């Protein structure tokens, strides 16, 4: 009984962790969109803010985070070609989805065109910079992991020699 309860708790912890990781990314996307949209409205001198649009951007951020997570969902070693392809999809998803979402949901209805172009003009470099930063992070993490592996091997060699 206790073992079963522990298993259920462990599963829930696992699901909650996945959800939390997706939500962190959702906040990053959602916040970037909302802030950029508000900034562009401020630049063109618009004061009114539609809460519906803010909620929509929040939801789009959440959707993007989950779609990006699904791109690397499978627990397997991808081939270099497959990994590169998924990386491109991961990076392109926000670019591909934000533009039609803005059009369909009418985030820029009644606003000067500069507002819309400014919005995408700021978001596109942001997504690209984020991708470059992620690449840098994984390169650094790989280097640290290999240093740890070397240390571990040297250490275990020393242990067995003692």
């Amino acid at each position, binding site marked *: 009984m206790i073992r079963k309860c522990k298993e259920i708790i*462990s599963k829930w912890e*696992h699901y909650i962790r996945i959800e939390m*990781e997706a939500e962190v990314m959702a906040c990053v996307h959602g916040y970037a969109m909302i802030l950029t949209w508000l900034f562009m409205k401020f630049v063109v001198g618009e004061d009114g803010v539609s809460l519906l649009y803010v909620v929509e951007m929040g939801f789009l951020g959440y959707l993007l985070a989950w779609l990006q*997570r699904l791109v*690397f*969902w499978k*627990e*397997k*070693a*991808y081939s270099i070609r497959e*990994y590169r392809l*998924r*990386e491109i999809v*991961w990076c392109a998803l926000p670019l591909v989805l934000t533009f039609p979402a803005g059009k369909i949901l009418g985030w820029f209805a009644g606003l000067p065109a500069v507002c819309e172009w400014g919005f995408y003009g700021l978001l596109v470099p942001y997504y690209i910079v984020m991708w470059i930063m*992620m690449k840098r992070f*994984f390169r650094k*993490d*790989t280097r640290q*992991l*290999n240093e*740890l*592996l070397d*240390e*571990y*091997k040297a*250490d*275990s060699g020393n242990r067995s*020699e*003692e």
Partner: protein
Amino acid sequence: MKIKVIENKHRAGEEPEVVIYCSEENQEIRRLVKLIQSMDIRIAGSNENVSCSLRQEDIYYFEAVDGKVFAYLEKEVWQVPHSLESLGRLLKAGRGSSFFRISKSCIVNLDHVEHLTSMMGNRIIAGMENGEEVIISRHYAGMFRDYLKYGRCGDDTEM
């Protein structure tokens, strides 16, 4: 306790021999014998009609496929009559041993891991010395990092 390693070129090809000199065989000595014996665990492997005894240092990784567990050596693959859980216990995977559970279906020998690559989705790819690659799953990646850093992992580790 004094420890001495004596190299003897004339014993080339023979198994290493451990001799313990002591005034009497006490608890400490018995523990030491057990520890040394645990380093020489051999795993029975079978391949069609052939059977053999596999030395743990020759095994690169174990993988469970369709309910069967296989030991992967540099070039050979042998089926072993154990579950991954029992192998984990037998090899003390993750408790000062060079074997570590890296996914639901795989235990890897860290001594044969050549390089590691951090990937998106919080997973790590382990490149083996024979050119194969195995994946350290999201669930085990954190424990794996701790194990490399501190040589141990949490008590709740499912080996």
